[in-house]
């Protein structure tokens, strides 16, 4: 199936402040009260399959569940080869890498050091067997990812796509603290998932751009979330009932932006 473009259908957002945009403070720096990292707790999920899964893998799973709640659909709606999965992170692999380097983890932990295992767990959990892309980088990579899924949908490679982002900082806080001149805090652990479906307009991509107002609002209200920032922006835009949004992201001195159409939230009784 080919369509003219793509549309953001839903966003699940979990941050160290809580679930959804309703949990966000007016000013993240004030709310952080000097804390460097605002953590997300390890989710508790049923099933023996998750006994070895890392915290970041579980956060990926619950971010998709949050997206399903926002979309008002069940798991079956995204199952199969019609759904593409694009995962983006700057550093969610850091915790598992540090555990492996410090020899704190057993043999079976080694595969979890690969960034591809987090989306792998998500793919297994939700039965996602469509196109599969894993990007490493900050917010610009997520903007690239949103644009990519729009291209995939418009090109008929998939019917819908998930853009999943996870960032964790607690285990690597000592390293981030060294680089605080690069990333002024607070670092807010976040897991977010966007559902992108067919629409009328292709996402308009600008490979180099200036930061959009939404990016500044995310920075102010959420804090530093690296790859998750553009999806937090999508969540804010959707909560504000915007029909389109320019979502930008900045990382290592480069800013990219994408303009996306946004579906309205279903009216809940």
């Amino acid at each position, binding site marked *: 199936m080919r369509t003219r473009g793509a549309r953001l259908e839903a966003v699940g957002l979990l941050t160290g402040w809580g679930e959804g945009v309703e949990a966000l403070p007016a000013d993240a720096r004030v709310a952080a009260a000097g804390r460097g990292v605002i953590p997300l707790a390890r989710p508790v999920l049923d099933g023996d399959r998750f006994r070895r899964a890392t915290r970041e893998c579980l956060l990926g799973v619950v971010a998709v569940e949050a997206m399903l709640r926002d979309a008002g659909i069940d798991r079956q709606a995204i199952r199969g*080869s019609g759904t593409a*999965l694009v995962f983006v992170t*700057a*550093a969610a*692999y*850091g915790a598992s*890498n*540090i555990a*492996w*380097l*410090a020899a704190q983890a057993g*043999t079976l932990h*080694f*595969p*979890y*050091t*690969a*960034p*591809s*295992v*987090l*989306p*792998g*767990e998500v*793919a*297994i959990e*939700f*039965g*996602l*067997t*469509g*196109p*599969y*892309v*894993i*990007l*490493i*980088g900050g917010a*610009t*990579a997520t903007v*690239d990812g949103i*644009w*990519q899924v729009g*291209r995939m949908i418009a090109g008929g*490679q998939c019917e819908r796509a998930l853009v999943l982002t996870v960032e964790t900082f607690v285990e690597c806080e000592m*390293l*981030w603290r*060294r*680089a605080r*001149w*690069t990333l002024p805090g607070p670092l807010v652990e976040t897991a977010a998932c966007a559902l992108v479906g067919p629409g009328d307009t292709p996402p308009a*991509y600008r*490979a*180099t751009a200036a930061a959009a107002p939404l990016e500044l609002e995310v920075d102010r209200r959420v804090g530093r979330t690296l790859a998750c920032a553009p999806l937090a922006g999508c969540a804010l835009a959707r909560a504000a009932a915007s029909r389109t949004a320019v979502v930008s992201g900045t990382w*290592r001195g*480069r800013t*990219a932006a994408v303009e996306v159409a946004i579906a309205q939230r279903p009216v809940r009784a």
Partner: protein
Amino acid sequence: MVVVAAGVATPIGLDLDAFWSGLLAGADGLSAIERFPTADLRVGRGGEIKKLPPVALGVRSRAAALLIAAAADLRARADVEAAADRIAVVVGTALGGVEELDHALAGDGRARRALDGLYDSPAHALAAWLGAQGPVLTVSSACASGATALGLGADLLRAGAADLVVAGGYDVLCRFVMRGFDALRSLARERVRPFDRRRTGLLLGEAAGLVLLAREPDARGPRLGRLLGHGSASDASHIAAPDAEGRGLESAIRAALAAGDIGVADLDFVSAHGTGTVLNDRIETAALRRVLGNRAGAVPVNSIKGALGHTMGAAAALEAIMCLLAGRDGWIPPTVGYEEPDPACDLDYVPGVCRAVRPRRMLSTSLGFGGCNAALVLEAAS
């Protein structure tokens, strides 16, 4: 999209010509690892580059050094000239700068060292070295990364987001990954034997492979060939083992063929992932057999991992380059280490010596941790 030129740094050669002549000669790039201790590991061999080229000396991270060595080789073969903000870099890696993370944790307290540990740092070092200010993407779909990087690079060009793309893959051989594969008992104690009845596992290697991609009208002068299509798919079955039926790989291959708008009858050669593990080679053979159908026995299939080791993020990029060189020169490199047929692996694996065949259209397949599968369809320059 046109593949204008390529550059490499590998254990069997530090430039494209040495790499290619080594592959054709059946060179063995696997040796005892010297750069870090391995005495506590079951296996201490791998495809280690013993001496980096001068251009890479002084680069802080070995991962970035490998990329820059390959980029210097690429730049010696083609002009990378466009407005800086129209040059993109897209590279794949399984390990990124993880060796620098090790150094940062071991007491090197410099902030820069900590940032070097991020997996996208080597790509940004490469972009800085090239003077590229367009999109910089790092793909990390484990050992399928290089294939997806080439595909995304082509997408950037197709969408007009860049005019030139330097795309490929890299990874370093370091203690982090050696210890992991050693613990998983995935490493061969003796030689790597892809598709052979006696195969017992893989050996790791380090390398970088890059290509310069351009749109047809912008590609001036000689070229290596074209990237016709790419495809990817998730297994959704296991985090560290391939799907038992190879369904994700089959989906990725069919997607790449569809994207390239070519049929199975058009394929002349397959560069397989061919790691030399019992499971991978059997599953990959079955998937290829299903896709190729009644042409399965007629299409040569090789693996170059017996010569280089499994170079992880670099593997798919090097294999794509190998395909295009085979089409250019009319020789398919042998599957080094393949000697005794396995009933479960019953394709034509190019045993012994290189074969005088000039493939025109080629398929390259890749798999990785996390259920990642990717495939490329390439065409030699006419």
